């Protein structure tokens, strides 16, 4: 577990110490730590829905140095272990007035269609 300076005390109190090792988020950080490991032909999974391109690039580089292979996972294995996950919000959707939303729904959809047409993509 890599945490920044705000949680160094909290993580010691909240995590089982025999199960987790705690490292600094900046130095070495997750990518720096991974690059120094020897993980030849081991598979490291990641969820493509919750990772940014920048992080993915760094992760790929670090995994390459470690000799590991990245695998995009679907579903996320965290979901299986997340037994007490809160339910998804079931509140009724209410449209906001234009003075709060800033842009109307039709305008957004028109903008989206224009972008899709420009990129010649097909909607999912």
């Amino acid at each position, binding site marked *: 577990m890599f*945490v920044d300076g705000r949680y160094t005390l909290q993580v010691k109190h909240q995590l089982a110490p025999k199960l987790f090792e705690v490292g600094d*988020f900046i130095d070495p950080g997750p990518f720096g730590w991974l690059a120094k490991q020897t993980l030849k032909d081991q598979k490291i*999974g990641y969820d*493509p829905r*919750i990772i940014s391109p920048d992080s993915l690039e760094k992760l790929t580089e670090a995994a390459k140095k470690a000799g590991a292979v990245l*695998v*995009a996972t679907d579903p996320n294995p965290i979901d299986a272990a997340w037994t007490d996950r809160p339910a998804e919000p079931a509140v009724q959707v209410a449209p906001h007035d234009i003075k709060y939303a800033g842009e109307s729904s039709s305008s957004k959809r028109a903008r989206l269609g224009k972008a899709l047409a420009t990129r010649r993509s097909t909607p*999912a």
Partner: protein
Amino acid sequence: MMAPAAWSSFSRRSASLFFAFSFANADRFGVEIGAERKSGRQPSPPRWPARLSRCRCRARGRASCVAARAPALRDSRGWCRDGQCRKRGQPRSTPESFLRRSAPARGRRRRRTDRHERGSPARLSGDTSPCRRRRPRAGADRRRKDSGVDRGWPRFRQLAITAPPAAVSKRWRTSCNARRPPACSTSAPASGVLAIAAVKAGARLRSAPISTPNRSASRRRMRRTMTRAAAEAAPCRRRQSCDHPRRRAYDLILANILARPLVRLAPDIAKLLGTGGRVILSGLLAHQEPQVKAAYAGQRLQLVRRRRLNGLVNPDLCASPYRPSDKISSGAQPPTLPLSLSGCFLQVSLKPDSTHHEADIRSHRRSNVGRASLPLLRATMKAMELDGVYVPHDDEYQNEYLPACYERSHGRPASPDPPERLSSFRSPRSCSSTAVTRCR
């Protein structure tokens, strides 16, 4: 003549206290008492205010007077006719004697006050000084200068200084219950600056003595200034009763503290505030404004105006004059009432409140997060033939702003086996830190 417009809205419970104060300061305020002076006839001896509904002995805290609730049994000076009070051996109090007692002490103490006044670097407005409480000369303009009105500020007639942990802490409540005057215990320089500013804006300080634990020279100077400012405007003999929070709903609360304590103190500050009262919060950083505003919005306090200065915000919040039970029609803005009654100068300790934090940590100390979920995660990883899984850090920008390089729609995997469906968007599972889990 300055009209006592606020008297009518004073609660009946504190009416006697307020009138005693107003009467004692009549010459200072420029208030004329009685109709005889207006008409230019020979001035008659001053009377107790007509709205003083109880016997003076009861108003001064003496209980069980037979005339306490019977106006017919009182004489023109507010005392009961049957002499119950005099039978008890109390000195007969008259308006003249009351004024005499309220006047500053003479002799040595008076001279010391004068010398102190001359040597003080921050001189407050002269008309509030006790040594200048002479009656104005005949023909002089009795209108009291009020510079705050010219600057668009509401007129603060009275202002009380109290201490903060004061306003909320058990210590303050205990001291109030014990009838000890509250004391301003910390951060006196900041309090002093605000107090001086309030006085310059036309506020009238009424306060208990101020004690500062720090013995540095600047603190001593500030304490001297503050004590003088408090003493000069506190002729009320029953000082601690006037400042008692249970007897007064304050109209103005100034708070020059950090944002987090302000958020925590919101319910307590709202309790101290009267209907239509105001809270002025100074020194907030611009990004802290929404959370403070939200905390006070839950306490029926709405933002009246804010002033931004170099990234700092001074929001001015106003209490709704409606009670919680009143229904406010949608779209209608609750009107704000003018400030004219009293104020509470609130200053809390800058010491971080570690109690809450420690309790928070203690509650999690034995939780051993991961002891149950980690075996499940490892079993899943084994089923998916994974040796490790990367759980990214939470959003840097707390989902409020995502630069283009962080846009997740581009996060399609570069690996040879991409997931088939990416169209159904689910909220990202967030984690407060980054973890790389290995299958052991």
